[in-house]
Structures are given as structure tokens and as C-alpha cells.
């Protein structure tokens, strides 16, 4: 704030053509920021400096209407031997006074605003924000953005979620490999998005030195490699094409896919001895797809995979405790744990088999060959140093035992990690409880990631169970939900993708697929909305919020003040947004279609994005507040039970009741007075309880003094002086 007020004061002086006073003022009330550092490089922002400390100046000004500021300024001009004309004349000082008055008004309105903001935030229950508002003035902290002036807008909101469901059962023409077996659902979806592998032709020109004119010699026929022949599944292809790491064959940092491609070309080359270079083309065959297309499509798919999370049952339904009763599946409700475990077990068996082969290697070449088979689990770049030595053809054969030992240690460690038992809690007898469903699922996921890398996507398969009925009801009502337009979701995507990152990534992957491979089919998109209603309309469409034409507004359900206004409104009536708002709307990408699911149908997929969609109310609840000094009188908090003054009294006399009341009232007032407040021993006349004390035990006695001393002696260590407890 000091610098901000300082800027305003300097600006005002400059506008009043009193720029000559800025420098003396800066010297008189300097702003000294901490931690400012000079640099020779261009900097987009440097800390505030060279400015008057506005807060100090305004404070000094307010003490005596500027007299001390003026004398300090004049003295400074003399001390620093500034030109005499710098000293402000009386008319000039009048202008300075105006500038300062404006700045004081500004500071005053800022503090009014911050005060209002503080009160507002307290009313809202946001004490941190209230504290921040007040700290702007009190502690010179950073200014806040006041919310007190903002008119809140009421409305209804629901969760909109975009997810994709992988076609689990669909077959594809891509080669199968270890990754596709471990995650077949996602592999199928990627295969759908990437299209037929045979459509990708990669071309390379082969360079064979230079001719006499120093022109490069290029083979007349470029070599071609088809993606189908590279033996990669869709999942491997996407992951490898977008994972950058060093590969010994392509040299430098490159993607794993390019390395494999170079290998594939190298195997085809005739007369490899005189090859000096290999130029892989970005383009493919005419009208076909080449490396550039493949990599661009894979990039959009990988961008999506990096952002999204696996879908669970909780994402497809609105959780309902009555349907979940008796099941405790924690974070992974409905997940088929056995299916996931079989995937992990298959991988572990695979790994163990190769590991045993590696450990039985006879010599260096044998070891390297066996290790190459392990490339999915341990990338060559992370082989132990002792093994890297062996890749040099001129290595010493005696290095082999050390390398084998290092490999053995690495692989055994990995095996141990895989077999690590799940840490479970102990029950009340100290016996470990059996692992929960959630822990078992998590263990299988961890095992797969330990083997195939932590970036490997693992999507558990789950079923909808008792929720299937509601889900099917929405699936069956597609025509209602989308108003008979099957392209509703695909038309909605480009709009929402502009403001939601996850959706943008999905829309990008879908556009890339459609531009390069094939257009989507009508059944590829579904809308599901909860709670399911009769004739539902997807809440993303404006029709969901409006009555049919000619439906009159229901005036009985609106507040009194609006009835006359609403009755005059032309056009279709609006529904009560709070009644029609759904809880959850789902847009689903279901390539190949999805018509109905059974209770135990396995589903898997990814959640692309979710957000709260907000529909503002047409009406706003405003408030009229008024000050009314309501009386402070309150009913008594005691009930007086009056007894007749004489035993055989026939009836009460009014005076008697009055007397009882007055007595009670007098006694009440006495309760507020302490005996020692009354001087001259009158205090003894105040009501009090008397406890008899007789040494002969003829009367029941309470010897308080004795008891008190005994108690004091007993609790000597914790004596609390009377009256301070």
C-alpha cells in the first residue's frame, strides 16, 4: 500500500506540474524495499523502488495539516543544496495540499471499503478473508480483491462428467504383446482410435556416401516399413512413440518408437556396409499415413492418458448407501479383483520365466540376448553399469561374472518387491486381519506398475451391480435425452473443450482420430443423467430448463411479490431450476456402442474431465434490512412457587400475592450484592445459610474450619487462594 499510495501522490504532483518536488519527497519519506537485486538481464518485473512511502507521508501530513512535511521538505532542500527554486511557493503549496487531500480521500475510501469487506466476510463466516482485508491497512500486507460489493447470483448447479468406456470385448487387428495383454481394455480403445495398423507406412531414404560431385548418393527406391509388421500393440505404440529416452541405435534423445523403427529399417537394408545415413520421412505413401501422422495422433492420445484417471463405479453412478449396504469395497467398489489379479499374476509369471533364463546365461552374448527379452520390464538404459560394459564388442570376457552378479542382484530385488506382503492391521487379538478388497486391488495395480513402469496405465474392470437398472434406463432414453439428435455430444465437445483442459485433450484425440482414421458413428456417444426421470432431457441443452410451449406458470409455488409479474410474462414458462436440476450428467464415449449392461458386465475406462455446471436463477433473493430498536425485555427464567402465609388459608388475597412477589424481588436484588459491599456490618443482615457448630455433639455440627484446615493440609501442594480459583 505504501508504494501504491506513493505512486498516486507522485502522479498527482506530476499532473500539477510540480515534478520538482518528487525527488525531495522521496528523500524525505523514502520507500525501502527489502531483497531487491540488480541484474544485467532484461527482467519483466522488478520490485517497487524509487517511490515515496505513501503511508508515512500521509501519516505525517495528517498530524498537522502538512506543516511539518513542508518544513522538513524546505530543510532538506537547503541541506542538499538543491536549487532555491525547488522550494515550493505558497500557491504551489496550495496545489500540493490539493494533491495530498485527494490522496487522503483515497486512503479514507480504501479503509472504508476494507472495513466493509471485513464486516462482510465476518457475516459470511470467512474469518481468514476478513483478517486479510483488515491486514491490508493494519499490517501493510498485499491488497485483496474485495467481495463485499459483488452481487451474488443464486442458481442451481450439477456435476457434468465426460468419460470414455473401453470396448473390452472388441477384437482388433493389431499385434498382441505383453502390454496389450496386461491392459486389453485400454489397448482396444487405442486400437480403435489409431485405426488399422496396416494403414501406416514409414518410408526412409538410404544414403550411401557422396559421388564425385560431392552430391549424396541416395537409393532410388525408398525403403518402407509397415506398422503392422513391427509387432507392437496399439498401447505399446502410443506409449513408445511418446516416451523420450536415449536409444543406442538412433542416437541422442529420441522416442523408443523411433529406435524400434530404425531397427526395423536396419534389418531390411541391402549392403549395409556402405550406408552412411538413413532419412526417415515424415510423410507416408500418397493419401496414406506416415510417421508424422502416427506421431501426431499418438501425441494427442498420450496427452489424454497423462491427464485422466481410471473410471470407477463411483464415477458412473450417484453413490447411494442403500444400494451399497453390506459391501465394503473401499476405494474400488465393484472392481473385479480376481480379473485384475490374473493380469498381475500372468505378468509376474512372464517376468519370472525370463528372469530364470537370464540368471542361467552362459556367457556375455547369451546374457545380452536374454536381457533384451526383458526390455519391457527393465529398459536397456537402466541396465547396471557392469552390463553396459558388455555391450562394447571389444569387452573383456572376464567382465561377465561381475555383470551376471549385478543383474542377479537387480532382478532378485525386483522379485522381492513384487512378492512383498500387504501390510494389514491387527485385530484385537493381535492377529493380522485378512487384506481388504481395496488393499488386494491396490497390490495388483502396484505389481503391474512395478513391472511395466509407473506411467503404465492400469484400469481396473468393475461392474455396476445394483446400479445397473438406473444406468440402463438412461441408456434406453437416448432419444429423449438428446432430443433425437445423435450428434449432440460431439457438437457439445468443441464448445466445452475450450474451457476445460481434460475435455480439450479428449476432443483433440477425437479430432485427430476423425481427421486421420474414420469419422465417429452415431452410437459412439451416450448421455446418462441421474436421477433418472420420465422423459429426461440432458441438462446441457436449454430445452431441459424450459416448459413446453403453452404450459402456464404455476403461480402457487412462487413468492407473493412475483405472482403479478410472472402472470404477465409472455412466452414459454421456465421450470423451477431447483426442481429440475439433475445431480449428475455423464457424457460417454462408447466406441462400438453400448445399449445395456447387466449387473455383472465388466466395464473399464477413463474419466476425462468433470466440473460443476452452473445455471443462474432468473430471480435473485435480495434483502431489505432495517434498524429497529426492539425492546430488551424478556420473560423471567424462574418460576415462583408461592405458598400461602398461613396454613388454613381459604383463598389468596391479592396483597398477599403482591407481597410474595415483592419479597422474592427484594431477595433477588440481594443476590446481586456481596456482604462486603455494604459498610458498617450491615452485610451480616443479608440472607445467608447458617451451619451450626457445637463441640458437645448435642446438635448436628459442621466444623467447617477444621475441615478446611484438614483439606488445606492434604492438598498443600496445590493451594489455590480463595477468590482466585
Amino acid at each position, binding site marked *: 500500500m505504501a508504494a501504491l499510495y506513493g505512486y498516486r501522490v507522485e502522479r498527482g504532483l506530476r499532473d500539477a506540474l510540480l515534478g520538482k518536488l518528487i525527488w525531495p519527497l522521496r528523500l524525505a519519506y523514502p520507500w525501502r524495499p527489502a531483497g531487491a537485486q540488480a541484474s544485467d538481464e532484461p527482467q519483466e518485473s522488478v520490485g517497487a523502488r524509487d517511490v515515496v512511502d505513501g503511508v508515512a507521508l500521509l501519516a505525517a501530513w495528517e498530524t498537522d495539516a502538512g506543516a511539518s512535511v513542508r518544513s522538513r521538505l524546505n530543510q532538506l532542500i537547503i541541506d542538499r543544496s538543491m536549487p532555491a527554486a525547488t522550494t515550493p511557493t505558497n500557491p504551489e503549496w496550495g496545489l500540493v495540499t490539493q494533491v495530498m487531500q485527494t490522496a487522503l480521500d483515497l486512503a479514507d475510501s480504501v479503509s472504508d471499503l476494507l472495513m466493509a469487506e471485513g464486516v462482510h466476510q465476518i457475516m459470511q*463466516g470467512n474469518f481468514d478473508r476478513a483478517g486479510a482485508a483488515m491486514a491490508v491497512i493494519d499490517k501493510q500486507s498485499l491488497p485483496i480483491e474485495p467481495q463485499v*460489493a459483488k452481487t451474488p447470483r443464486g442458481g442451481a448447479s450439477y456435476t457434468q462428467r465426460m468419460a470414455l468406456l473401453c470396448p473390452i470385448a472388441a477384437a482388433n487387428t493389431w499385434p498382441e504383446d505383453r502390454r496389450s495383454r496386461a491392459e486389453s481394455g485400454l489397448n482396444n480403445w487405442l486400437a480403435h482410435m489409431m485405426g488399422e495398423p496396416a494403414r501406416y507406412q514409414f518410408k526412409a531414404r538410404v544414403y550411401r556416401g557422396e559421388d564425385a560431385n560431392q552430391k549424396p548418393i541416395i537409393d532410388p527406391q525408398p525403403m518402407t516399413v509397415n506398422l503392422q509388421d513391427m509387432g507392437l500393440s496399439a498401447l505399446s505404440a502410443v506409449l513408445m512413440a511418446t516416451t523420450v529416452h536415449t536409444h543406442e541405435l538412433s542416437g541422442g534423445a529420441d522416442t523408443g518408437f523411433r529406435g524400434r523403427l530404425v531397427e526395423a529399417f536396419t534389418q531390411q537394408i541391402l549392403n549395409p556396409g556402405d550406408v552412411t545415413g538413413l532419412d526417415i520421412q515424415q510423410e507416408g505413401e500418397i493419401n496414406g499415413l506416415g510417421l508424422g501422422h502416427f506421431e501426431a495422433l499418438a501425441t494427442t492420445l498420450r496427452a489424454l492418458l497423462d491427464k485422466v484417471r481410471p473410471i470407477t463405479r463411483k464415477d458412473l453412478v450417484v453413490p447411494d448407501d442403500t444400494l451399497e449396504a453390506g459391501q465394503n469395497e473401499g476405494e474400488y467398489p465393484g472392481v473385479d479383483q480376481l480379473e485384475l489379479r490374473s493380469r498381475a499374476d500372468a505378468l509376474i509369471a512372464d517376468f519370472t520365466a525370463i528372469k530364470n533364463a537370464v540368471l542361467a546365461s552362459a556367457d556375455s552374448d547369451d546374457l545380452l540376448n536374454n536381457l533384451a527379452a526383458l526390455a519391457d520390464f527393465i529398459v536397456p538404459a537402466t541396465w547396471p553399469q557392469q552390463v553396459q560394459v558388455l555391450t562394447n564388442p571389444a569387452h573383456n570376457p572376464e567382465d561377465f561374472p561381475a555383470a551376471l552378479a549385478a543383474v542377479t542382484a537387480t532382478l532378485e530385488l525386483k522379485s522381492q518387491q513384487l512378492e512383498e506382503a500387504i501390510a494389514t492391521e491387527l485385530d484385537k487379538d493381535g492377529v493380522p486381519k485378512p487384506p481388504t478388497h481395496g488393499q488386494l486391488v491396490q497390490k495388483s495395480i502396484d505389481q503391474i506398475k512395478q513391472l511395466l513402469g509407473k506411467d503404465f496405465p492400469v484400469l481396473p474392470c468393475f461392474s455396476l451391480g445394483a446400479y445397473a437398472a438406473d444406468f440402463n434406463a438412461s441408456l434406453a432414453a437416448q432419444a429423449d435425452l438428446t432430443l433425437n439428435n445423435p450428434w449432440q455430444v460431439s457438437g457439445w465437445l468443441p464448445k466445452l473443450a475450450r474451457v476445460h483442459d481434460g475435455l480439450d485433450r479428449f476432443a483433440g484425440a477425437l479430432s485427430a482420430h476423425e481427421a486421420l482414421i474414420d*469419422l465417429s458413428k452415431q452410437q459412439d456417444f451416450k448421455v446418462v443423467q441421474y436421477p433418472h426421470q420420465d422423459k429426461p432431457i440432458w441438462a446441457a441443452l436449454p430445452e431441459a430448463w424450459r416448459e413446453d410451449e403453452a404450459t402456464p406458470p404455476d403461480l402457487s409455488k412462487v413468492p407473493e411479490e412475483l405472482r403479478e409479474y410472472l402472470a404477465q410474462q409472455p412466452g414459454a414458462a421456465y421450470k423451477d431450476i431447483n426442481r429440475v436440476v439433475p445431480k449428475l450428467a455423464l457424457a460417454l464415449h462408447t466406441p462400438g456402442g453400448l445399449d445395456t449392461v447387466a449387473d455383472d458386465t465388466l466395464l473399464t475406462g477413463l474419466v476425462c474431465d468433470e466440473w460443476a455446471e*452452473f445455471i443462474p436463477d432468473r430471480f435473485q433473493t*435480495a434483502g431489505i434490512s432495517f434498524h429497529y430498536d426492539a425492546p430488551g425485555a424478556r420473560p423471567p427464567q424462574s418460576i415462583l412457587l408461592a405458598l400461602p402465609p398461613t396454613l388454613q388459608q381459604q383463598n389468596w388475597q391479592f396483597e398477599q400475592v403482591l407481597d410474595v412477589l415483592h419479597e422474592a424481588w427484594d431477595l433477588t436484588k440481594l443476590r*446481586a450484592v456481596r456482604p462486603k459491599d455494604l459498610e458498617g456490618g450491615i452485610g451480616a443482615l443479608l440472607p445467608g445459610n447458617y451451619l451450626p457448630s457445637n463441640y458437645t455433639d448435642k446438635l448436628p455440627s459442621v466444623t467447617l474450619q477444621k475441615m478446611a484446615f484438614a483439606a488445606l493440609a492434604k492438598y498443600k501442594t496445590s493451594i489455590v487462594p480463595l477468590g482466585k480459583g
Partner: protein
Amino acid sequence: MAIELSKSVAYLANAQSFTAIKPSITGFTRLETQPTSVSLKTGLQAPLADPLWMLARQWQFNEFQGEDAGSPIKLAFAVNGTAVDRFRSGHAKDQAWQSLSAGEAPLETRVEAEPVWDTHPRLRGEAGLQLLRMLPNAGVRANLLASYPLTLKAPSDSAADQAGSLWSTLFDKRTIDAQTLAAALIPLLDGNGKLTGLPAALAIDAAEIAATQATLENWLVWLSDLVFEGAPDNPAWQGERLEYAFALGSADVVLKADEYTDGHVDWDDFHAEATGEDANANPPVTQQFAVAQRHPSPVRYPGMPAERYWEFEDGRVNFAGAEAGVTDLLRISVTEFALSFGNDWFVTPVRLPVGWLYKVSSFAITDSFGITSPIDAIKPAGDTPWTMYQMSADASLNGQLQHTMFLPDSLDGVQEGAVLEHTLLARDEMANLAWAIEKKVQGVSGEPLDRDMEAKALAFQQQIHFDQLPDSPQLAYRLATPVPANWTPLLPVRKKLNLTEPLEIQLERAGMKRFYPEANVAMLGSVDPAYKLFLNGLDSQPNFISRLDIDPNLRAYVFYPRGWLLRKDPNHEMVITGPEADRLVIEEEEVPRIGASVKRKFQYARSSDGKSWLWIGRSKVAGRGEASSNLRFDVAIKTTTAR
């Protein structure tokens, strides 16, 4: 309550039996209640079951004080509303008023919207894909694709514009350019939105024409709903202030919003003035919202002191525990208000349609004794101009809008997309300049491009090694130190050329000149083969790097900004003279020392009729302080240099 043992009072008990039996003296210990103690804690806990004591407390709290007043129990009031029914873009009065009726775009959207399709080829391609999906016939698809393909050339710097590089690979000639196709179709629409024919460029089988036309009509409806486009030269945008200006009209009142920058229209953005027009020109649309009976409720807030002694207060808030030093006046004032003046306030809700001006026309309270009293609005105490929730109004309105509240039909929950364009404006006191620093602009695909990274490729730096001989040069002369290519100078210019008038400064966007020797000119140090490529790279960006022809041995370039915030049309070469000159002058005070940060973003919101709106809008917030370019001229340096 602490129990105090007071001095015993002894007297002779049972005097008759004194002689007969063993004498004894009975003493009495008097127990006295001490209603207060040093600490308030015990007193406040009130662990006592003495009903009279409770009454004493009530008495002390004035709860038995008879007052000549009743509690408010019933309200009758009426609120008069005047509809705000007109909208005008920009400052100028020559802009036409547009009606604000239901079903049209929200206020923020109308004010901010600017062209989208021109700037976003990826969106054009995605809109084209939607048409391809909707067309069932493969032949028609191929025909449309061949006639209206999207052309998307690869960017010259694919490292800075990665999205551009990606989408040019994916979309070039592989999807329909929705903008071109729509431009060809819209002239063929009749009044009912039906196509009267197909563009001549399309050769479609006669059997398919009807179906294709129907699909194209549906697609056009969808396309017009996809984004809300504003005029190319949005009249609401005040380029010299980098702010929006617009006005609303209600009967004979204009509500002007001259400095709207934050993306949220609210009552405090407006200043009311009289239209000065004939009163019959704009008849007011009025409505009374009357309530015959409603109960008021006391104003409550967390931590509010309980009115009664025997009542538990909100445990989460403890105003009494607020720590305030002697100088924390604001904190003390807020605490005092909260503790002492919070009661005696009542509130009643009233549901009102948005987009109207409201004034309470009558307000009557009936208290518990059946006495009805009308209440007026609170008058400002003294002469303080401080009011809340009331627009500032011009004197010409003669207090017409006093006690009037504007409930704007503003959007809430606007969802913002990634920043498409971001420019920082900052002063540089050392260089005596202001700078416009482009951080992001839209690349070839419409997705953002990183200008900082691009600037690195637009600079050429070379280390020159001098021989360590006695007569070899020790210093190199430099005309000017380098400044990144995304920094554009804003030069101070005189507003009026009449030198007798007071000095008024504006900041004019200039270009940054840079001079490079031709690649074939002999230079100090070894020749870097990348140098020639670098020079050619500069030539390939004519839209924002203009080449000047001044000397055969020297290449001179002027670097201009390349975003929509600082240029009229960055898709074409810079024009600096003539009627089409792209000149941008910014008022000096709009680049304060704290700087300014201007952004363009996609925005999305739903309006109360359920429609969704997508548009590109701009925002300006305070910047990050001053910049330091280290721009210096005529310097001699020792070891490093750049050409």
C-alpha cells in the same frame, strides 16, 4: 461462586437447659455467596441452581426493563422496479441502442465478444468435422471436403508453437473449413433459415441434394450456437485504455460503465446520468413487487453476542479473542461493531427478477402491540459521501436514483479457458520507456504459442574470441544492447502538438529496430553457418517482422507484436502509413508504475434460460511492477557480443 467463611457469630443457645445439663455453646458458621471473583470464569460458568440468582442476573441485564416499544412481527412493503432494457456498446453516443430482451446473449458476452473464427483454425476444423459426421453419404462428404478444405500450414518455429505443428499435421486438407463453408452458405439462406440452393462449387448428385441441404441447415444452426462472435472492431473495447466501455439504458437514465475490465458486471461498475432526451422517447417499463405480509428475522452472524445471559454462543468465532495491537484501528472497529452494534437489525427477503432498478416504495412495520409504523430509508449521516450498494449518480439526475439498487443480470460461475494471449505492460524507468511484453499469442492453429521461447529463436548470439595480442581490440562497440523480440517499446508522444499547451503524454506502440550485417559481409570472428539460416528465418515472418531496405550490406528489421491485443490484424503485414495504418496509442495513465497484465481467454457461461455461451473476452488486472530491459545505447563491452 466462591464460598467464603466469614467470622462466626456465637451466642448462647438453649438457655433453659443450660443449668441442667452440661453447658455447651453452639456456634453458627454463616455461608455467604460472593457473586463476583477476580476471574470472570466461574461467574460466567454460573454453576448455580439458585432461581433467585438467575432472576438477579436477568435484572442486571435489563431484561425486566419496561420499554415503550414492541418487537417487529409483521412487515408490509412494496418495491418498485424499472426495467433496464437497452444496451449500448462503447463510449460514443453515436452507437445505436440495442434492446435487452430475454433469450439474447448475456451482458458480459455482448460487451466482450470479439471475432473467434478468424483466430482459431483448429476450431474451424473441429466444426467442419461435426458436419462430416452429420453427413451420412460418403460421396457428399468427399465433395464438401474437396471444395472447402481447411488449409493449415506448419508454423515456422515448431518448438515455440507445438500445438500449431501438431494440428497442421493432423488437419491440413483433412477437414472442412467451417468458416469458408458457412460464408458460402449463409447468402443462400431464406428468411426461415432454409437453404434455397447449394454453392456452385459443389457438384452433388441430384438424389442427395435435399438430404444434404437439410443437414447443412441443421449444421448452420449448430454452428451459430457454438461461439458468440462480436464485431471485428469491437466498439466496446477502448484500445487507448485497454478497457471495455458500455452503457445500459432505463427510461430516461443512462448507466455508464466506462472502466469494465474484470469480467464481472456489477452495480459498482456503473455511473448514472440523465439521457437528456425527451422523456417520451423511452417510456419506462415498470412493475410493482408488493408483499402484504411477511415476518422479519433478526440479522444473525457467526460469533454474534447472545442477547440473553443463559444462551450458548457460537463457539467457532470469538471476537473477544481478536488480537489487535494499539495501531490496528480497523480491527478494533470491526470487533466493536460485531460485539456492540450487531443486534437491533432485522432483515426480510424479497425475490426479484434480475436486470431491473429497484426502489422500496413503501415499508411498514407492525409490532407486537399491533402498532404499525412506516419506515423511511436511512439518510446519510452528516455529509459523508460513503454509501454502499448505491450507484454513483450525476447531479443532473437530481437525486432520482437515490436509494435505488441495481440488480444486474450478470453472469456468475464463468468458466475460463487457457490463456490465448497474454501481454504485460510495464514501465522501465531506467530506459525511460514503457514496454509491452507479449508472453503468449495465438499460433497458427489458434492454440497459444510461447513468445518467450520464440524470442530465443529470434535472437542470434555469438561469442567472439579476440586474439590475446597486444594490438588486438580489447573492446567491442555496440549500438544497442539486445532486448527480447517479444518486448515492444511504447514510446512517449505528445498528445497535442501545440507546445504552448500543458504537456500531455501518451504512449505509442512502436517497433523495435534491429540491424544485422549480411551473411556475406566480412565480420570479426568466425562465421557461424547458422547465421544465414537465422536471417532467412527472420524473413519468413513478414507478419510481425518487417524488413527495411536501407543498405546492401545491412539487413534492418522492425520487430512488431503479433497478438490481437496490440495489433489490428496480426495475420497480415504491419501497415504503418496511410488510412489503414495500424496505430495504437495508449493513455499514459493506463500503464501505471504497478504495470498492467492484459489477457484474452475463452469464456463459457450458462444464462438463466439454460443456453450456453462461448466467447473470447479480455481482462486487465494490475501488473507485477516495473520492468527492467537494460536497454542501453552506445556501449563498449569486453568479451561477449551479439550481432
